[in-house]
C-alpha cells in the first residue's frame, strides 16, 4: 500500500510526446510531385544532406528520388534506382506508372508507402523515396549505409576459452550471430520500434516451443508500454521493463556475449536485442545467473565448479568484510582472536583517525581512483594505478594516516567485488557494501547481521518477469539448485532450468514444465 508507491513500479502512464508537423496531420499522399517534395522539405526542415533527384520527360517531372546522402549507399542507389529509372525513361516504352516502377526497381525489400508520415520515417531511416509523376505511389527503397564497428571480443566479459564473438552496435549483425548458431525453425524473431524520435529497432528472440508464452507475452506488453523520445542504449529498456524500480539489483541480465544469449535462448529465456547497443538483454534473470560465466561451461565441470565457488565466496567477502571488520575493530573486538586484537590495538595507536573515518577515507580514495581510471586512456590508467594505488597507498601508511590492515582490507574488498561476473550486479554490491559498513559502525556485529538480513529480505521480494530473484534457492527448485554452486556436467544437464518454466523441460524431449516449489 503505502510502501508500494515507493518500492514497486507504479502502473506505467504513457508520457505524451508530440511529433510531426501539422501539415502531416493526416499524411495523405496527394498533389503533384512538387507538392509532395514541398511537404517533405517543410516537415524535415530542408536538411543539408537531403538530395532531390528529378527525372525529366519532355519537360515534365516524370519521377523524383529523395534521400539523405549521409545515410544512403550511393553505389546501390545508382545501381538499383537511378539507372533503371533513367533507362526506362530513355527507352520510352511506356509511361512510368506504379506497376512499371515496382518492376524496374531491382532492390529487394522495397516497400510501398501509404502515408507521408511513414515516408518521412523511412527517409530518415536510410530509405530512398521514389515518387512518380501521377503520385499514385511512393516507393521506399532500403539503401542504408553507415560505418559500423566490426565484431570484436566483448570488452566487459572477456574469457580465456570460448568464442571471441561479442555483439556490436548493429542489430542485423547481432541477429545474424544468433541465427548462425541456432538453426531451428522455432527460433522466433519479432521486431518492435521504440522511441518516438530515435525509432530504435528492437528484436525479441526466443524459441517458440520452449520459452514460456506468459513471459513472452509480458515482454511484449512491457515493451509496448515504453513511452520515451529516444532509446540510446539497452540500459533505457532495462530500466523500463524491470519489475521493480527502487532496487539497486539488476532485474534483467545485460550481456555483450553472443554465446550467453544463445545459451539463454536454449534454456527457454527471451532475448531482447537493441539496435545501436552492444549490450543486449536476457529475461527473466535470477540472482544466480549473475555468477555464471560462459567459461564455466567451456572448461571441465570441476574447474567450472571451482570458479563459481570462488566467485560466490569473493562476492560475500567483498560485501560483508568491511562491515564485519569495522564492527570487530570498534564495537566487538572480543570476537577476534587475542593475537589479532593485540596486533590491531598496536596499529591503531599509530593512526590519528577513528577506525570508521580511516576506513571511510581509504574507501573513498579507492572509489576516486576507480572512477578516474574507468574513463581514462590505457596509458594514463597505468600512471593512476602505480601513482595512485601503490605510491599513494604506501605514502599514506608511512605517514601514519591509515593502517596497513585497513588498506589490506579495503584493497581486498575492492578486488573481490570484481568476482561478480556482471557489471550491473557488481555495481549493486559495490554500494550495498557501504550499507553494511554503516550498520557495522553503528551497531557492530549485530548491525551487520541485521543489515544483511534486510538486504536478503529485499532480494527475496524481487521478481524478474514473475520469476523469483532468489530462485532456485528461494523457492527451492532442486534440479536448478544442483546447477548453482556446482556446474553440472553436460552429461547430467539434460533438463532445462525449471526456474524459467519452459514449455519443454527436457532439452531433447517434450516434457511439460513444472512449477516452482
Amino acid at each position, binding site marked *: *500500500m*503505502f*510502501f*508500494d508507491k515507493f518500492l514497486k*513500479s507504479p502502473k506505467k502512464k504513457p508520457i505524451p510526446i508530440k511529433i510531426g508537423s501539422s501539415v502531416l496531420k493526416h499524411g495523405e499522399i496527394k498533389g503533384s510531385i512538387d507538392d509532395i517534395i514541398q511537404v517533405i522539405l517543410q516537415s524535415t526542415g530542408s536538411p543539408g544532406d537531403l538530395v532531390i533527384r528529378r527525372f525529366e520527360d519532355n519537360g515534365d517531372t516524370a519521377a523524383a528520388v529523395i534521400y539523405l546522402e549521409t545515410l544512403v549507399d550511393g553505389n546501390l542507389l545508382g545501381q538499383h534506382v537511378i539507372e533503371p529509372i533513367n533507362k526506362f525513361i530513355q527507352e520510352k516504352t511506356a509511361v512510368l506508372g506504379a506497376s512499371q516502377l515496382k518492376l524496374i526497381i531491382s532492390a529487394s525489400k522495397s516497400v510501398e508507402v501509404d502515408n507521408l508520415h511513414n515516408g518521412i520515417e523511412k527517409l530518415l531511416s536510410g530509405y530512398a523515396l521514389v515518387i512518380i509523376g501521377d503520385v499514385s505511389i511512393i516507393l521506399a527503397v532500403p539503401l542504408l549505409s553507415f560505418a559500423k564497428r566490426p565484431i570484436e571480443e566483448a570488452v566487459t566479459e572477456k574469457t580465456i576459452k570460448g568464442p571471441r564473438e561479442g555483439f556490436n552496435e548493429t542489430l542485423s549483425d547481432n541477429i545474424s550471430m544468433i541465427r548462425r548458431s541456432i538453426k531451428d525453425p522455432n527460433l522466433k524473431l519479432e521486431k518492435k520500434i521504440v522511441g518516438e524520435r530515435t525509432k530504435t529497432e528492437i528484436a525479441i528472440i526466443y524459441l517458440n516451443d520452449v520459452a514460456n508464452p*506468459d*513471459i513472452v507475452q*509480458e515482454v511484449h506488453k512491457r515493451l509496448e508500454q515504453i513511452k520515451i523520445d529516444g532509446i540510446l542504449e539497452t540500459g533505457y529498456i532495462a530500466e523500463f521493463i524491470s*519489475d521493480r524500480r527502487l532496487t539497486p539489483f539488476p532485474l534483467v541480465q545485460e550481456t555483450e556475449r553472443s554465446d550467453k544469449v544463445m545459451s539463454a535462448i536454449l534454456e527457454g529465456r527471451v532475448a531482447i536485442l537493441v539496435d545501436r547497443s552492444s549490450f543486449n538483454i536476457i529475461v527473466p534473470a535470477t540472482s544466480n545467473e549473475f555468477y555464471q560465466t560462459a567459461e564455466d561451461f567451456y572448461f571441465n565441470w570441476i574447474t567450472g565448479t571451482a570458479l563459481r565457488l570462488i566467485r560466490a565466496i569473493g562476492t560475500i567477502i567483498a560485501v560483508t568484510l568491511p562491515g564485519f571488520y569495522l564492527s570487530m575493530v570498534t*564495537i*566487538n573486538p572480543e*570476537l577476534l*582472536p587475542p593475537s589479532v586484537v593485540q596486533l590491531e590495538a598496536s596499529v591503531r595507536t599509530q593512526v590519528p583517525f577513528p577506525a570508521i573515518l580511516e576506513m571511510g577515507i581509504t574507501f573513498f580514495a579507492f572509489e576516486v581512483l576507480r572512477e578516474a581510471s574507468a574513463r581514462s586512456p590505457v596509458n594514463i590508467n597505468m600512471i593512476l594505478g602505480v601513482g595512485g594505488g601503490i605510491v599513494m597507498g604506501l605514502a599514506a601508511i608511512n605517514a601514519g594516516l591509515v593502517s596497513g590492515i585497513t588498506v589490506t582490507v579495503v584493497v581486498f574488498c575492492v578486488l573481490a567485488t570484481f568476482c561478480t561476473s556482471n557489471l550491473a550486479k557488481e555495481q549493486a554490491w559495490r554500494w550495498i557494501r557501504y550499507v553494511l559498513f554503516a550498520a557495522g559502525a553503528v*551497531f*557492530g*556485529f*549485530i*548491525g551487520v*547481521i*541485521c543489515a*544483511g*538480513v*534486510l538486504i*536478503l*529480505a*529485499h*532480494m*527475496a*521480494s524481487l*521478481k524478474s*518477469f*514473475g520469476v*523469483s530473484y*532468489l530462485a532456485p*534457492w*528461494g*523457492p*527451492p527448485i532442486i534440479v536448478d539448485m544442483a546447477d548453482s554452486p556446482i556446474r553440472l556436467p553436460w552429461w547430467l544437464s539434460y533438463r532445462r532450468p525449471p526456474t524459467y518454466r519452459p514449455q519443454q523441460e527436457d532439452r531433447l524431449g517434450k516434457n511439460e514444465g513444472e*512449477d*516452482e*516449489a
Partner: protein
Amino acid sequence: MLKEKTGIGPGLLFMILYATLFSLGVMQSPYVAAEYIGNNGYWGLVLAFVLTVGLIILLNSLGRKFPKKSIIQYLPVVCGTFLGKILGLIYLTFIFAILILSSNMTALQSGTYFLFRTPSWAIFLLYLGVLTYIAHQGIEGITRLAAFIFPVTFILSLMAIGFSFQSFELDNIRPIFFIDGLKIPLGAVQLFYPFFPLITVLMIYPYLTEKRKGFKTILGATTLAFFMILATIISGIGNYSAPGVLRYSWPVIEVTRKANLPFILQSFGLFFTVSWLTLTLTGLGFLYYILAEGIAQLLGVLNYKWFTLILFPIIYSGMILLTEIIEVRYIFSFFRVSGFVFTIGFLLFVWLLAVIRRRGGKKDAA
C-alpha cells in the same frame, strides 16, 4: 504485470516453519530442561514432541476442512460471528505475546553479548525495523527468505551443535531413565513452547499450493527442528550438567563456543550466532506478518502492509514496557504453561466445534 503466484509450496512452508520453530525454541530450551527436569531434561522435549504430533494432526485436519480460509476467516463460521471474532482476537493476542516476548528476549540477549553499551531502546528499534521490513514483504517474500538462508544456516547450526559434543560427558546426562515423579510431564509442558509457532499454520494454510502434502511438510519441519533442539539440550547438559547450564543466561552460546576445529576454527560460537540471529529475524518477521495479516482480516479494513506500520509503535511500546516493568524470564515460565494450555485447548475447541456443528469441508471451502 505478469500474474504472480500468491501461494507457497511445501518446500517454502517447510523452511519457514523450521526457521521459526528452531530459532525461537533453541536458545532457552537447555536452560528450561535443566531447570524443570534436571540432567535427563531432554525427555521433556521428547514428550512435548509426541504431543505436538497430535497438534499437527489437528492443524492439518482444520486446514483440510477450510482449505481456502484462514483461522480468522473460518472462526465466525465455526463459532458464530461474535464468538468467532473474540476467539480470533485471542488467537492474535497469543501471537502478539509470542512476538513481543521472543523479540524482547532475543534483543536483550544479543545486546548483552554484543552491544552491552547500547541502550535497549536502540536495539529494539533496530530489531523491530528489520522485522517490519521483513513482514512487509508478505508471505512469499518471507518464505523465500527462509528458503534462501536455510542451507547455510542449517549446515552451520548442525556443525556448531555437532562439534559441541567434543567435551560431552555421558555422566552429565545420567540418570537417563530416572523418573522423578511428575518432573518429566511438567517439564514437557514447559518445553512445549518451541512448538507454539505451529499455530501460525492456521493462518497460512490457504496459501499452501499442495495441500495433500501439508501434514508431511509440517511434521517434517517440526521433526527437524525437534532433533536440532534435542541435540542442543543433550549437548548443553552433557557439557555442563544441569546445574552447570543454569549458571549461564545463554547456555547455547556457551556450548557452541566450546565447539572448535583444532587449528582451523577456534570457535563455532560466532557462526552459530550469525545463523541463529538470521533465522530468528526471519522467524519473528514471519510472526509479525501473521499478526498484521490476522488483524487486517479480523477488522476487514486496510491490508497487512498497513498493519505492519500501524503495529510498529504498539510492538515497540510492548517491548519497552516489558523490559522496564517485568522480569521477562520470570513471566516467560508462566507464558510457557499458559501457552501450552491455549495452544492445545484452542485447537481442540475449534476442531471439536467444527466437527459437532458439521462445519468445514466442501461447503466452506470457498
